């Protein structure tokens, strides 16, 4: 399970970085989204991977905490998803504005002269 997750995070992050460095704005935003998936999975995995463990204790019962998953990374990843989603949406607006104003989807607002 760890191996699959690690390969998944690595693939997402690698593809994301490659796309981020591409000259088209659409590639950049997809790259940023892929990196955000990789980062979110990474945050999630920081609570240790486990199967069939709930993150919430039943009230009033003192139980063995090893039977439960760490809730903090799950809370963190929720926050990170929301914030990442919002800022990516904002970036999308700027991207569209840039496309409209400059007439090109190059990140520098103009095509490179060849």
């Amino acid at each position, binding site marked *: 399970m760890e191996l699959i997750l690690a390969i998944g995070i690595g693939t997402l992050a690698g593809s994301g970085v490659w796309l981020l460095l591409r000259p088209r704005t659409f590639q950049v935003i997809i790259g940023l989204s892929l990196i955000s998936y990789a980062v979110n999975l990474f945050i999630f995995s920081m609570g240790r991977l486990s199967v069939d463990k709930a993150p919430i204790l039943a009230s009033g019962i003192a139980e063995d905490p090893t039977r439960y998953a760490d809730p903090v*990374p799950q809370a963190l990843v929720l926050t990170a998803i929301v914030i990442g989603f919002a800022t990516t949406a904002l970036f999308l607006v700027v991207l569209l504005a840039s496309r409209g104003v400059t007439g090109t989807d190059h990140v520098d607002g103009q095509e490179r002269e060849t």
Partner: protein
Amino acid sequence: MMGWDHLVVVPIILPLMAGTTMLLFDGRSRAFKAFISLAATVALVAVCIDLVATATTGRTASVYHLGNWPAPFAIVLVLDEFSALMVMVTSVLALASLIFSVARWHRAGVHFHPLFQFLVMGLNGAFLTGDLFNLFVFFEVMLAASYGLVLHGSGIVRIKAGLHYIAINLAASFLFLIGVSLIYGVAGTLNMVDLAEHLPSMSADDRTLIAVAAAVLGVAFLVKAGMWPLGFWLPTAYTAAAPPISAILAITSKVGIYVILRLSLLVFGADEAERFGADVLLYGGLATIVFGMAGVLAAQEAMRVASFTVVISSGTILAAVGANQAAVTAGALFYLVSSTLAISSLFLLIELLERGREFGADMLALTREAFGDPEEPEEESTVGTPLPATMALLSLAFIGCTTILAGIPPLSGFLGKFALLHGLFQPNGSTLSVTLSAGQWTFAALLILSSLASLIALVRTGIRSFWTSEEREVPRVGILEMVPLASLLLLCVALTIQAGPVMNYMEQTARALHSPAGYTQNKIVVTPVEHVSAGEHHDP
């Protein structure tokens, strides 16, 4: 006196409330929004003065438990001399640039005032919080608002610069998240003090992982601070943004520096022998100064010159942090305050000087046409009462900015640089030390050379705008625009006159930073305030 404890949270709550209230009204009620915004910011300055006073008298940092939950499990706000100082500078700059923009610039686009208040909230939160993930959240609040504000006024230059600004900051935010979660995965805590206390008892493997996490975090903060290989976005974004926005953004690049200073000293300790990453900061800062010098000399537009002074200021402070001595840090703090005030006033001043001849005015006219401004057409022609002797006042202000930024007597810029050099050569106060490392000698040399570069660049700008343009008209400057500019510079004069007490404060702050016992002491042991039982709950 129970109520006064809650003052710590006011710098976050107040802009939040003001910003959300303004969102309820549509874009046309601009005068009303300006009033709310101004009232909130004036109140904020008053609160911050009180916070600084509290921080000066308190022996240890005061801790505010949000929601009254116990410390390591929930988020705390921490007020010490350093955070109080930064919140104070933020609120003063916010007030100045807000008054300035009320005269004219807030009409250049929609939602100026809410975004401005959220920016202030994010800044204050980032300065006050004692929790790493909470720091991320406030960083994002600040960044999201600044994305909107950089685009304020629209136009092709801003959109192009904004695109780069947002892309690099989003990427940096992901690095921030990786660092924070890695720290949580290893240490099991995000509370800064808790982390500092756990670190010595960790195994060597875990410490390596923490160091990796800290390095990743550091890259994210250095992107914000604009250190050399990471800071190419900074001059373009600051040049393109509306001048009052650039004036407040001058403090956002200091947030990265604040966090680096706080975290590296708190978590890794001020071990004189080898502090984690100190060399990177020193040499990175030196490279940043060189980059800023080259930029300031090469820049043609005045706004670009001002943007590169931000880079020089960042580089100087980073190198001073890397020098890793309490005396140098004290000088760096003084320099931070005076250079930030001066850079902000330079941005405002340049807007006034360039008015009516460069793209700023054209762009403003264009966007106002686009957004439409039917209800106040008569204000098109004037910006309030034009002042007499405008040019004389403006040139006086320009001399002030130049002397501060170039670090020549008599104003506070000189004192800042002098304190830096003094701390470098006499770290213990009395004996002259000449056993400096090569990096520190270079730092001393670059401090003086960067003064020369700033002086040349600013004098050239001054000659161009005051002496060589015969045909241009005197810019129409309203009283509302002159007041914030003059107050920022007068604050620098006050810093110069009151240099003794201010420097004492900075030294006390630097000592506290370098021996963070006062910061750590209170945080964990203090339990939440006891709930007031029903019988006692009678307010007179």
